[in-house]
């Protein structure tokens, strides 16, 4: 019999307490923010330093070493560096990132060796753009070297490669006459 009234009393007391708590929330400021237009400060300012927003490339800094392409587990980065005329080392022909597949795991940014002196920002870095939206699915593939420039560079690089291949072939096909000359030159 006691538990009968105890149940009633418990229910009443706990419901009473629960309702007091929910009513107290009516007098507090809601924490949600009216996102697109009624903001105190634009969202990128509130993001912390290491925020992984959207991959971006500083094309001048990049040395086309393809370490990022190897580091990415799911082949999001597609780039190519080739030898071109009059430039030591590799020049960047094209650099495409498929943002639709990127999982923001930060492995590529850590693999990138090229670093800007004063801003300590690597060539490949994460922007503070947290929306990461595109209108069409083709928007999701970002080409950091524009298509035409990439094509021109590619043609130039392939010509240079053929030219060097022809020179090397000449060097092997007629080695004897050259070597006789070389000893005098070499002394």
């Amino acid at each position: 019999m006691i538990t009968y009234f105890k149940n009633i009393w418990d229910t009443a007391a706990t419901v009473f307490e629960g309702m007091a708590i929910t009513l107290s929330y009516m007098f507090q400021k809601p924490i949600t923010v009216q996102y697109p237009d009624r903001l105190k400060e634009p969202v990128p300012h509130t993001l912390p330093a290491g925020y992984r927003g959207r991959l971006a490339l500083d094309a001048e800094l990049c040395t086309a070493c393809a370490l990022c392409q190897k580091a990415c587990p799911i082949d999001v980065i597609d780039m190519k560096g080739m030898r071109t005329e009059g430039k030591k080392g590799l020049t960047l022909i094209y650099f495409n990132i498929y943002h639709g597949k990127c999982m923001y795991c930060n492995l590529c940014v850590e693999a990138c060796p090229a670093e800007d002196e004063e801003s300590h920002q690597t060539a490949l870095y994460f922007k503070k753009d947290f929306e990461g939206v595109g209108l069409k699915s083709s928007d999701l593939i970002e080409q950091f070297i524009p298509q035409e420039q990439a094509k021109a560079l590619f043609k130039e690089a392939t010509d240079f490669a053929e030219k060097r291949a022809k020179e090397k072939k000449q060097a092997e096909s007629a080695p004897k006459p050259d070597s006789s000359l070389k000893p005098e030159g070499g002394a």
Partner: protein
Amino acid sequence: MKYSIDICEKLVQLVSPVSAEIIQRESKMPIVKISAQEVRKVIQIAVSNPGLKFNFLNNISGTHLTEISEEGDIKSRGFALLYVLSRSDDFSSVVIGVDLPDLNPSVDSIDDIFGSANWFEREIYDLLGVVFNNSCDLRRIMLPDDWVGHPLRKDFQEKSSYNGIPTTREDELAAVRVDNL
């Protein structure tokens, strides 16, 4: 970690008629290797023997053992099962390893000793194709029932489509790559 070599020694003595030898002695996880027929008996002893009392089944994991044959392709040479048991008081553990032959590997099921063994065994059956004799309910757990083949085998060839659904996505990046323009 709570593996120790003397627990393995104690288990080997208590199971003495059964031939059990300890491999990977000096590494962090010594394994008691037994043959496929005595799995049930050894685990029964490990659980019930007052000196051992390993009554908590942590994990059963299966692996497909292969070797590279002369002409370089993968030749399977069998399967390996690994039972990890621990005591429910101080949670120290012992690891029992079993090697199974390559053709229709099978071992006795222990789902009446441990309640959770059935799901571990079903997963190994589903993904590796190891048959567990007189198991209470052995059917595929992850894959649809009409799936052919066992994916976790090293020589598993993935078909291009399953019931008309292509299993590979065309590479969007290739369309934009400069080389093939």
